[in-house]
């Protein structure tokens, strides 16, 4: 089936405004948006820029706006969208660098602000790792499957309105570590969370939960962290 891909093109050096370029592609069953982009790059226009690495929904590099929704290009099959025209645009809310590639700097910077690593001042046991029981892991299991694709943060209206807002992905990471039974770092993170650019900017719009390709619910983690913050303070 012939599908027209309307692809967002932008080259800051050309001085031209961004525009949508049409690329007709013969799509076969099972073909993903990423495959189609590869087809376009190989046979129609080698200057097309997009990010990808694993091609199997693990690395999180290929998130983009496909027919209005943030999704992974490598996990979205073109025929399943049931459209003869497919719009492919960069993630909204982040600065486009070129074509489909966006500047991820503020996204990573928000992660660093919540200290997205295990914090525990006690020395680990010398003979083994820090132990976590399977039951304890279950509590945070879903949140550990985040691949940092930024679909959620880029779909969040609160983030569009305030680029300093941590965003659902960073808050989810804060949740993932703060609710890890081996972690003692909540006090180090609370400054970034209990903050006008933190937890309180979320208005439970749930775009993040809607679009997460790993079926994570960042909104729920935000609510858990709010409760934790309030309980810790009062």
């Amino acid at each position, binding site marked *: 089936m012939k599908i027209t891909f309307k692809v967002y093109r932008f080259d800051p050096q050309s001085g031209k405004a961004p525009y949508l370029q049409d690329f007709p592609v013969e799509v076969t069953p099972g073909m993903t948006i990423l495959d189609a982009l590869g087809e376009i790059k190989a046979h129609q226009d080698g200057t097309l820029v997009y990010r990808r690495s694993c091609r199997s929904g693990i690395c999180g590099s290929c998130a983009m706006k496909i027919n209005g929704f943030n999704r992974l290009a490598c996990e979205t099959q073109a025929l399943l969208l049931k459209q003869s025209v497919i719009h492919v645009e960069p993630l909204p809310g982040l600065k486009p660098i070129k074509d489909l590639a966006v500047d991820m700097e503020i996204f990573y910077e928000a992660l660093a*602000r919540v200290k997205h690593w295990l914090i525990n001042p006690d020395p680990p046991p010398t003979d083994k790792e820090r132990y976590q029981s399977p039951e304890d892991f279950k509590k945070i299991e879903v949140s550990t499957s985040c691949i940092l694709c930024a679909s959620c943060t880029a779909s969040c209206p*609160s983030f569009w*309105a*305030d680029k*300093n807002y941590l965003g659902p992905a960073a808050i989810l990471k804060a949740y993932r570590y703060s609710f890890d039974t081996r972690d003692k770092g909540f006090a180090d993170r609370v*400054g*970034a969370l*209990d*903050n*006008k*650019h*933190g*937890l*309180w*900017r979320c*208005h439970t719009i749930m775009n993040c939960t809607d679009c997460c390709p790993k079926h994570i619910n960042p909104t729920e983690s935000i609510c858990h962290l*709010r409760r934790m*913050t*309030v309980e810790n*303070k*009062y």
Partner: protein
Amino acid sequence: MDRGIGSGGAFAWFFQRISGVFLLIALLAHFWVLHYSNNGDVTFNLVAQRLSTPLWKTIDLTFLVMAIIHGFYGFLMVIRDYVHNHNLRLVLVSLVWTVGIIVGVLGTLTIIAFKAPGGGGL
């Protein structure tokens, strides 16, 4: 860049939930008292009598304070969401506080000073 580390917001958020629950209950009670408890008869005298008692004055004062805090905090939220220009934000936030306080004082005066015309109550 303004990262606002440590500037808080937990109490405001928490209080917004408490006042929200209070307002929900108070509003339902208000509708019931006003429109159903007397077969739906709403007359000035009836309301005036009620508002003259200390108990109702206290209830109405709490209602007033909660509603103002809840409502005006909502305005502050919108401003925090969308106004990033420091000066404009200062102006708008001051405006919200000023109007909130004026409305609060006027409401409080009205409730406290109210006397039923026919006598009775305080």
